[in-house]
Structures are given as structure tokens and as C-alpha cells.
């Protein structure tokens, strides 16, 4: 039986806007096992992206615990958070978030520049990642020279090039046509099944949720299915 990679217990998150408390997440308790592909659905404003931000330590909870691979994320010191994220978390964003002035190769290489890998080793990793996503012939292309689907594939390559345990995808097909969306979802499925990556994907797309083996639903900050 696969062990739990992510353990969330009694998680709360509130924001304050003009001194009004806005509760985004309430009493979330959840476990994600290693190698799971989890789909997180819910209406807009239900807290889906916030949950991803908390798991990745981009944001801090108001209360509760988040343990990722045995490490209590909230106790990681600020100066170590960057390194921890770099090693353990891969991101896929809805709008790809590629750096426009860097080529596909250079975008994928970005997370590796924070490691101790040599230039040759980085090259190997990047070329392998781009080959897996099927863009080995687009290495020197800039994002403006790629289609939306190709950009997202570069983003996916960037997400797993450091070999993180978890990949967090926030509406990865939100900006794509249905054909490109299918390609991306198939790729993510491959990462999950072939490379045993744990995926947590936020989506509105009913087609996309079918790719997830486990579906969770958030409503008004609360987990309905867990």
C-alpha cells in the first residue's frame, strides 16, 4: 500500500481585506498517497488554488498542519523554503508562466540552475524532459514561437525536470482548445503512471476530472469528498 505523501490536518486559511475576515478554507483534512492523481474541483472562490498554494508553501495557513513527505511545511524556515520547493514541488500554471525572453530549453533549465548539477548534467536533464513532452525539436524556440499546447508542454517539462515528488497543476487546460487539452492531460497521465509522479490537479473541466483517479470537491472552503 502506497504511503501518504501529503497529510493535511485541520487546515484553515483566512484573508483579511479592509479588516474583514474572509474564510477561504475551513477544517480541511486530507491525505494524498504517493503516486496518486488527484483532481480537485469546485466553483470559483472555493479555495482550490489556495489549497495548492498552501501545500507548496507559497502561502501559509492560518491554522492546521501540512506534512509533505514527512516534513511539516509550516515549520520550514523562510530562507530554506525556496530550496525545499525547488526539490519537492513542480508547478503547472493555467497561463503556463513561461519566461518570454528565454527559450524552451532555458525555461526548462531554470529550476536546475538552483541545484549543484554541472552544465552537462543540466543539459541531459533538460533534453530528456523536452523529449518526454515531445518538444525536442523546439529547444531553441521562444514561447511566442510556440502554440498554447506546446507552451504548456514546456511548462510541464519545467515542472518535472528536477524530479519532484509532487506536481501541482492549477487549471492546466484552462487556456487550451480541446485537442491540446487532451494532449496535456495524456501527458500528465503518463507522468503519473509511467514516472510515478503524484499529481494534484485543480480543474473546472469535466473532461479533465476524468483523468484523475481520485476526485475531491471543494465548496465554500470545505472538502465535500475526501
Amino acid at each position: 500500500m502506497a504511503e501518504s505523501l501529503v497529510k493535511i490536518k485541520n487546515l484553515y486559511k483566512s484573508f483579511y481585506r479592509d479588516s474583514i475576515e474572509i474564510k477561504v478554507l475551513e477544517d480541511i483534512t486530507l491525505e494524498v498517497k504517493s503516486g496518486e492523481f488527484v483532481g480537485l474541483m469546485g466553483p470559483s472562490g472555493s479555495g482550490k488554488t489556495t489549497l495548492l498554494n498552501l501545500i507548496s508553501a507559497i502561502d501559509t495557513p492560518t491554522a492546521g498542519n501540512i506534512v509533505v513527505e514527512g516534513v511539516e511545511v509550516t515549520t520550514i524556515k523562510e530562507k530554506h523554503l525556496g530550496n525545499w520547493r525547488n526539490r519537492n514541488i513542480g508547478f503547472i500554471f493555467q497561463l503556463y508562466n513561461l519566461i518570454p525572453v528565454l527559450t524552451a530549453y532555458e525555461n526548462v533549465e531554470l529550476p536546475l540552475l538552483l541545484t549543484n548539477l554541472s552544465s552537462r548534467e543540466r543539459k541531459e536533464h533538460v533534453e530528456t524532459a523536452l523529449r518526454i513532452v515531445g518538444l525536442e525539436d523546439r529547444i531553441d524556440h521562444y514561447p511566442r514561437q510556440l502554440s498554447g499546447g506546446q507552451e504548456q508542454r514546456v511548462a510541464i517539462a519545467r515542472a518535472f525536470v528536477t524530479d519532484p515528488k509532487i506536481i501541482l497543476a492549477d487549471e492546466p487546460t484552462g487556456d487550451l482548445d480541446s485537442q491540446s487539452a487532451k494532449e496535456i492531460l495524456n501527458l500528465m497521465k503518463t507522468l503519473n503512471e509511467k514516472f510515478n509522479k503524484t499529481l494534484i490537479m485543480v480543474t473546472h473541466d469535466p473532461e479533465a476530472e476524468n483523468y484523475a483517479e481520485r476526485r475531491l470537491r471543494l465548496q465554500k472552503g470545505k472538502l465535500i469528498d475526501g
Partner: protein
Amino acid sequence: MAIPLKYNIRSLLNRRVSTVLIILGIALVVMIFISMMAMAQSMRQAIVQTGCEDNVIIKNKSTSSVEFGLLPEEVHNIIKYLPGIKKNNQGIPLVSPELYNRKFIKFGEEEKVIWLRIRGITPLAYEAYPQLKIIAGRKPKRGEVIIGKELPVKFGKEFIVGDKIQFGRQEHVIAGIFESGGSTYEGEIWMDKEDMKLDFDMKDISLVTVKLESPLLKDSFIKEVNQNPRLPMADAIGEIEYYSTLAGTSIFVLVMGIIIAVLMSLGAIFGGMNIMYMTIAARTREIGTLRALGYKPFHILTSLIIESLIIALCGGIIGSILSIGVNGYSLDLFEIAFSIKVTPAVMISGCIVSLFIGFFGGLLPGLSSARMSIVEALRHV
């Protein structure tokens, strides 16, 4: 430095117009800074170069400048018998009695007002000032003058031997043109002392220049003159020391130059800061993404400061190159004629100023972006 330099360079190329504008702004600031510093430095050098180690000036003790005090002519006859004075081949002590005056004239059709510095000399002066070299013509006779090579700057026209200059009671023929190693003498007109007395109705002399046998005798000679009961009005001072006190005027230029440069630099810093803030606003999501990937606030700060420094250094280099345009330009400022020399040291200091501008122009925007909330940055459209 984790964020690759190519990111900064390509980002700058991506926004060419604003990059070029800020570079040109900084180039202008640097060019003005270098020009002012070079001007002050060259002026100071012209003053300081005016003087020999073994020359002593004797002037009226009631004034700090030879221009304003007079000495009776007989002073010369007392001084020439003092010990330690060098003699020429004919055994004549090199003691040069001189008149010094400034007159303004109106020149040309536009009646441009020009201040002339005129020195009345005897033939011994040419031996007391060995650095003086006649580069055209010859020594003047009675009724003629010889001019320093920087004098044309005042008139805004070149002179040749044979031309005439009107001042005093008559026109004076230019018999020769001299140079003297970049000293302030190069902005003067020299004429016969007796001609000058007649021209300007002067009876006494302004100063006596004495050439000593050795610079080592300077202190004792000065003491001898200043304590001599037969020379109650006289004040002796080394020629170099005398002109060094005049160098104080160059400090004024230097201070003015620094004030102007600082004010313009502040303007450039705020301009640069504005551009960097706009840059950060346009790249907020990029910055958020980098942070999400693991880049630390320090990486972001360093990257943005480097970008600002690149812009500034480009401006500095261009400004330095443009400042070469003033190299060799002749000026007559505070009655000192000199040529501006833009030295490599001044150009480097200009580039350092540009780096200051770049650093401070990028610091606050860099700090602001480094402290940005990752969540807010990723939401930015």
C-alpha cells in the same frame, strides 16, 4: 548568480525604447560630470603648472594678488644685489621687473567685451621664464606685443604674426606667439614694460620675478626679502606657491561641477527608478513564477540591480565617449586660459558615477519586487 544574465539582457532588449531613453539620460549626466571634472582639473593644472621651483615673486604685501598692488621701481635695484640670484651669461642677475594689469576692450562688430591680461616685461623676463617658447614670429620690439597661444580663445578668432590688437592708446602689432607648457601665461599679452607704462599711465611696477641659483635657496631668499628693512612694502613668495593660491578658483569650478552632477544624477536615479518600477509591474508574474520555482528574494533583488547596472554602465560608457568631444577645447575662465584635458581617470570616475546611479536606481524597485507576495504576483495579469 542563479538567474541567468541573458534574462536581464534580453529583457532590456525587449523594451528597447525605454532602455535607450534611460541610457541616453545617464549618458548626458555622465558627459556633463566628466566635462565639469575635466574642466576643473585642467584649470587647476594650468594654474599649478604656472611656476618654476627656482622662481620667487616679490609683490606688494598689502595684497594677495600682483594685479592690485604696486611697488616702487627702485625695489628692483635693491633686489638685484641680494645673494642667491642666478646670473645670465652676461653676468646680469635674472631679476625681471614687471607690470601686470587687466583691461577690458570692446572687440569686433558686435563689440564683444573682452578682458585682457597684459604683462609689461623687460628682455630679462624671457630668461626668468625658460618654459616660454616662441612658436611663431619673434620677441617683440618697442611698440609690438607677443601673445600666448590661448589668447585667441577670448577673441574667438585666430591671430597670426603681423595682426594688430587695439588696446590702451594705440594698436599693437603682434610680433610673435608663445606657448609655455599649458600655464596660465598662455592667455596673456606681453609687451615692453615702458610701452605699458605709457599706454596705461602707470609709474610703478606690479611685481619682480627673480630666478634663483637653486630651489634650495628659496626659503632663505624669501626670508631675506621679507625681513629687509629697505623693502618694507615687499612680500616674497615662491612662484609655484603664489599660483597655487590662485588654484582656489578651480575649487569653485569643481564644487559647482559636483553640485550640478549630483543634482543631475538624482534626476537620473529617479528616472531610472521609475523605469525599473514599470519593468517590475510588467514582469510581476515572471517574478512570482521564479519565486515559486525556488528562487529567493535575494536572487530577484540581485538580478534587478544587475539589470539597472547594465543600463547605467552603457550610459556611462556612452557619456564617457561623448565627453571626448570637449577634449582639447580651449576656455578662458576666471581669467585663466587653458585647454580641457579629458583623462582616462576622469572618464573612469564618470563610469563609477553611472554605476552609482544604476545601483540606487535599481535598489528600491529591487527590494520591492523581492518582498512581493508570491500569491499576489502569480495572480497578476
